[in-house]
């Protein structure tokens, strides 16, 4: 059994006069010690599907499906035990550490809060744990850092602190939502190395959400590509990024600048823009932007079908090998 098993997850959010489907039947597995990558453009449902796991969706949201985490049915849990689980065994790191850290509380306070609440540590034990954590994420001068405030650190250091806080209760699963998007590449590389080390050292499972396929390629073991609330392709990193099968995955990769493309050659942009949750096209949601669309693509929503070590939601399969 996998650490996390998600089956048929659907999330609907209240809009003006109806419910909008933002995640539409998503399945995936995450194993211990594995980095599972979730990629897709903004609005593809990546973040919402994760917030659903933590139970922190906006009011009025409807969640359906089955989520099994570490042998427990996450969606069936009552609010209190779920909160306990979500704070202890499941942790999340957000894109912007400036907004996810409390500006008025010391780093020490934010680092010890969890372990005192969830693990019942006394102050001294909590402080020892906090120092351990700061060392683990390579913050120099831990003692001084405990008494400092978030604004006294650089962006990269703040993200390390946010990761330390997330790791405080030794979670089994860390959800990192665009953890390096706000950072410089030089700092990003440090955070990616940190996440990679953590999963090897402490057998931590990581869900890495990012729109940056380069970041994905650095540390993800397996990847799911999201489009308009559904998974269109998933499989091992190397296979998906080297030999993409879904036209959308292929198009995403083609849109990236790469060294071979030079001499004034334009980038291959995907025409149009991703659809809004309120106006998802019928059939395959990607068909209006797809160069390989067939008449049937406009009608039938393709299923995610296992094929040759990966899963693909495209019956046309123009890049079949």
């Amino acid at each position: 059994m996998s650490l996390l098993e998600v089956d048929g997850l659907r999330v609907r959010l209240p809009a003006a006069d109806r419910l909008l489907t933002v995640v539409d039947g998503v399945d995936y597995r995450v194993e211990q010690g594995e980095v599972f990558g979730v990629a897709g453009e903004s609005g593809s449902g990546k973040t919402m599907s994760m917030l659903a796991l933590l139970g922190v969706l906006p009011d009025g949201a409807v969640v359906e499906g089955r989520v099994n985490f570490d042998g427990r049915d996450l969606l069936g849990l009552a609010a209190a035990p779920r909160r306990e689980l979500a704070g202890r065994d499941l942790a999340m790191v957000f894109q912007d550490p400036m907004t996810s850290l409390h500006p008025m509380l010391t780093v020490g306070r934010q680092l010890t809060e969890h372990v005192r609440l969830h693990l019942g540590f006394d102050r001294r034990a909590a402080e020892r744990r906090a120092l351990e954590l700061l060392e683990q994420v390579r913050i120099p001068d831990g003692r001084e850092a405990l008494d400092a405030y978030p604004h006294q650190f650089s962006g990269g250091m703040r993200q390390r602190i946010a990761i330390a806080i997330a790791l405080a209760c030794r979670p089994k699963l860390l959800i990192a939502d665009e953890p390096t998007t706000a950072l410089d590449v030089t700092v990003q590389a440090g955070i990616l190395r940190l996440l990679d080390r953590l999963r090897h050292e402490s057998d931590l499972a990581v869900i890495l959400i990012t729109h940056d396929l380069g970041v994905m390629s650095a540390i993800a073991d397996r990847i799911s590509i999201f489009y308009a609330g559904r998974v269109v392709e998933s499989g091992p990193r190397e296979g998906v990024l080297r030999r993409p099968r879904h036209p959308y995955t292929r198009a995403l990769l083609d849109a990236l600048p790469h060294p071979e493309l030079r001499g004034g050659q334009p980038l291959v942009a995907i025409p149009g823009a991703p659809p809004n949750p309120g106006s998802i096209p019928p059939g395959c949601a990607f068909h209006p932007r797809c160069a390989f669309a067939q008449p049937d693509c406009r009608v039938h929503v393709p299923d995610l079908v296992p094929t040759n070590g990966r899963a693909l939601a495209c019956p046309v399969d123009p890049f079949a090998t």
Partner: protein
Amino acid sequence: MSALELTDVVVDYERRGGGRVRAVAGASIDVERGQIVGLVGESGCGKSTLARAAVGLVRPTSGSIAFEGREIVPLGRRARPRDLARLQLVFQNPYASLNPRRRVGAQIADALDTLDLVPAAARPARVRELCELVGLPATAAGRFPHEFSGGQRQRIAIARTLAADPSVIVLDEPLASLDASAQAQLANLLVNLSRELGLGLLLISHDLAIVRHVADVVSVMYLGRMVETGSTETLWKQPLHPYTESLINAIPHPDGSGFLPEALPGEVPDPGQPPSGCRFHPRCPYAFARCSVEDPTLVTLTGGRAAACWLQPEGASAASPAERARLVARAEVQ
């Protein structure tokens, strides 16, 4: 003469409670018409300050900034000379730079009205033309900014600058916060505009991959100084400054190979207290005795390149920092 010339520009900010921060510490950069100049560096290196100084939003402490041969005077109470309208700026965040309560067409038409570039009767047609030029539907003019995606808003911001009939546009991180596909669309648009309208573009970005793709020449900035300049292709193939090399090694490769990018240890130091000698020496893997004492200047090397590094002596032929470091080590032994 270049269309936009920044020479030895220094910009100081006053710190609250006294003290000064030298955000730009003597930087030069030229932009020709029809040329795309990339300016890269980590956050805090002074690239945005330099952009603001270039268009006269920040007063330089010393140095000169000239646009089409005319000195740029910082914005004041008096109206700017109208020739300076041909130098335009696009901001990073199109959610903040557009007025949410005015229709797109009215915002694009502002420059047409102010500069009286086309007769009033012809303005709606010109606005439609500008929308088309940046790849927006002609109906965009009647809509509000919130009806558009981030990429489209950035196009609106660009159309608004094009209304002033510019010869140079300074763009401060125009592609940040956009998805890869929107980024690709906008990058293509910028290249086309530059080629078709003969526009000079100063493109400031921390995304080196995209700069590599669109820029003709690149300047690399570190802590207020240019550390390396050169044509994009050669600079990327063979970086001469250790900082440029570190930046390139930190870029992830989206090829599924599992390549783990190299982190550059340490952080950009406080510009209020720059390190002695070469500003990069505390983070430089090749630093030797001289680097912590003497400050290198940007010197010309062969092949139209320039670097500010003690490993790269003036007039030397291009050789990687590692190669040069071996030579220096050998010389020290002897």
